[in-house]
């Protein structure tokens, strides 16, 4: 895929991160820029820190008490998100997240999608109806569930549940969507649906996706970053990474020789 001229929305600048108060860095001097309305894929073997980096982007790592950024900074829309005057709640409204294991609340489909708007204080029924419909349409789920919005979300299939989680995320209108291996628990057909959706969403949202599947990365992303043991090995256009990798390790990994 070719990359049109876009400006960076996430700038990661020499970032080091530790889970245990700086004793050992999980991420080591990472620098990369994610572009607006682009899909950026993070690939690498397990434990290489790609998920950690993803969770740094909306400060979900704050939940781990002993975690800290030891060096560098992350700027989203030009603002250092670890600055004191940044409210993580406001940040997360703008940087949504979809998790590896689909986790809809055990509520109705409608209530799941309306959850975000509701906690932000929207009570008006018709506004909520509008948001729910738009989010479900955007996540290509509307036609499948429009007749059973009041049914439990747990009755949906795995792929539908994951798309519901995506609908739930876009209901709060974020700028950026982080996806942490969104298809790893899905079968190939459901995966195809979700990948299709990612491509569609990239028109309106900037997406960062962590994936184990190199095919998936090559199919959906515009840019790819390859990580190995906490370090960024290579970052560039997806086509370049997969066809002419600069580093030996990258080549080994994308050609399936290890990992």
């Amino acid at each position, binding site marked *: 895929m070719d990359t049109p001229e876009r400006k960076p929305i996430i700038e990661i600048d020499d970032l080091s991160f530790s889970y245990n108060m700086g004793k050992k860095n999980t991420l080591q001097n990472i620098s990369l820029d994610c572009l607006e309305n682009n899909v950026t894929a993070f690939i690498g073997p397990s434990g290489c820190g790609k998920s950690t980096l993803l969770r740094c982007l*909306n400060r*979900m790592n704050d*939940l781990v*008490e002993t975690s800290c950024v030891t060096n560098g900074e992350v700027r989203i829309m030009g603002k250092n998100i670890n600055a004191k005057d940044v409210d993580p*709640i*406001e940040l*997360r*409204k703008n940087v*949504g*997240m979809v*998790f590896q*294991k689909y*986790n809809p*609340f*055990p509520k109705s489909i409608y209530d799941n999608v309306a*959850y*975000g708007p*509701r*906690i*932000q204080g929207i009570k008006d029924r018709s506004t909520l109806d509008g948001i729910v419909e738009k989010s479900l349409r955007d996540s290509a789920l509307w036609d499948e569930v429009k007749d059973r919005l009041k049914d*439990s979300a*747990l009755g949906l299939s795995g792929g539908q549940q994951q798309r519901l*989680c995506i609908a*739930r*995320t876009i209901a*709060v209108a974020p700028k950026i969507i982080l996806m942490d291996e969104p298809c790893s628990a899905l079968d190939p057909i459901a995966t195809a649906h979700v990948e299709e959706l990612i491509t569609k969403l990239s028109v309106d949202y900037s997406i960062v996706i962590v994936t184990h599947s190199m095919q998936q990365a090559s199919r959906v992303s515009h840019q790819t970053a390859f990580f190995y043991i906490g370090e960024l090995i290579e970052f560039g256009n997806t086509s370049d990474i997969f066809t002419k990798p600069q580093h030996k390790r990258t080549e080994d990994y994308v050609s399936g020789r290890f990992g």
Partner: protein
Amino acid sequence: MEPNPFAPGNSKRVTKELAQRSVLMAATYSILCFTLFIFGLIIWRGAPVLHQYGTEFLTRKPESLELVTYDAGKQLSIPAKSFKTLQKYNPREGLFTDIQDSSRSTEYRTFKIEPGSVIGDGYLSNVEVYNNFTAKYLKREFTAPAGFELSQDTEFQVSPDSYTTLTSQSPKLQSFPAQSITLESKSYSVNFQQKEGQMQAKTLVKLAKSPLIYKLYGNLTDVADDKPAELMPLYIPRAQSVLLTPEQYQACLADTGDFKALEGTEVINTTERISFTIPAGKHTLPLSSLKTLLEENPAASALHSHNLEKGAIFLDMKKTSDSLLLPLSEFEALQQDNPQLKISDIGSTSYESPYKEFTLTKAAQIKLPTTDMSAFKAANAGAVNENGQPRLKSLSEKVFPYSAGGIAGPILGTATLVIACMIIGLGIGVCAAIFLGEYSRQGKLISTIRLSMMNLAGVPSIVFGIFGLGLFVSLAPKMTSTPSIDDKFRFPVIPSFSQPDLRTQEKERIMIIDKDKELVHQLRSAQQQGLERYYTGWTFLSFQGWGNSLIAGAFTLAIMVLPIIITSSEESLRAVPRGFREASLALGATKWQAIKTAVLPYATPGILTASVLGITRVAGETAPIMFTAAVAAKSDLPTNFSALPGVGLDKFFSFLSQSVQAMPYHIYTIAGKLPPSIHIKPMQYGSVLVFMLIVMIFAGLSVWLRIRVRKKYKW
């Protein structure tokens, strides 16, 4: 034949193994036996009780069972509404024959009380009881006339001084012929030395009425009845000369203790008395005169002389009262005895009340609860049969406390205690569990809290009782304008504008503090008068405790179940998938929003399970409520709101600060504290069965609630 290489070699070993197995089996099966025995016994003995008394067993207040024995052929009557109870409590077939309906009419007078009335204390409460209202009054008055009735001509003797006062107060007394008499009386002047020694109990009882100053070691009242000749240690602190009556003097001489060698000198006193005779019939006299008269002539008996020491009451009325009602005879007494009572609009009305008449076929004991028994007795009082004999001449009467069934009070008490306790316990416990599980960092303080919680779970329940007594019953802060005289300390909060009225002052023994005088002196005198509270015009936050009350008991029980609630709530919070929290936070929820909407709802089933455990434990505990909430006897049900003082929020507070009866304590009372009898035994089994069912219902409700919630929030 091939020899069997695996033949059982040692038959002893087989027996041994069988024995080992039997021992283990016996231990296991004994559990089943115990369980069957407990449940079987309770159901076998309790079910017939419930069957006999039916719902009455549950809906009555705890009452005494009264037994009266009658001859065969007695014609009796009973108010119709008590007849069912009569049959239930006396289920012998064919005991009552000739059962007929009858009705009696009672004539009532209706009247209104005008402002400025004065009424005797006893009469006022009578009017209040019949009309279910509470009168306000201004002051007590001892010069108001009160009525009395003499059944025969009675001679009264008074001192000349009293006679002057009496005749000036009521000139009517002068019309009775009076004569002056001189009485001689002998007494002995006896010298006592300062001494420590012993004296017989019977002598001490007599000396108690003399002016002799001494100090006694030990409880005279018990000893004097049982062993009058017992020697009691005694200390006379100083040498003194005392005038003793001949009787006291003789007792001292006859004493076998260390004080017997007493020499006294005879003293002859003469007293002047005025003697006069009041003819039989009804009279009125000012209360204070009547009081003097009766004090100086204790042998004379006057009717309607009740409540003399309290005086008559000035009613505090701005306008004429609503229409009131009294039975005819009571009304006549009211009019006769209260000449200063202004009443108007006297009307007459009568009510028919249905009765049942029946004949007793054989000599029998009739059993009835107290209230029905008094109605029964009233229905037969005064009536005579064909032979002119009183109908209710019973052969014997017996009373067995608490033996009439009726456990409505304990049931409601336990229910309110459990509900209040669970509200408090779940409130504190769930908050603490959320903090511990979701907010707190693991630190020294938190692990100390956890450790103390574990310790709390192991504390014996009686210790909680003592703790509740110390903290909630006698130290906890309370907002009140009438703090207790011996509260620990207090802070004034806001001025109070409503001084308690006279009736509250008397009932709750309140001293109204005079601002111009020194507080300490007034408090001291209040203490000497036996007053309990004081009013200064301020509302205080007074650390006087909540007393023996529902709320103190509920708090004590709540603290007892806290460990159970916290541990299991924390566990159920932890069981909620991490994904819910993360998803919620990733959608921009604050921590509390995430907990409230994505964690708590899914932890509710687990928390409810914890409360099931809590409820069954709380409902069954006796020790923690023994000193904090429970009473053995109480006349009103705890939920009888009309009997509670105050209005609105005040009523709610008095609901919380009342003491209650509770099932476990009631069972303890009827099984352990009352003398055993055949009448109390069924009550024990019945109560235990009901208690068991109640606990099961409580637990069942929680399970049902849990299933419902679980169905709603399932993942």
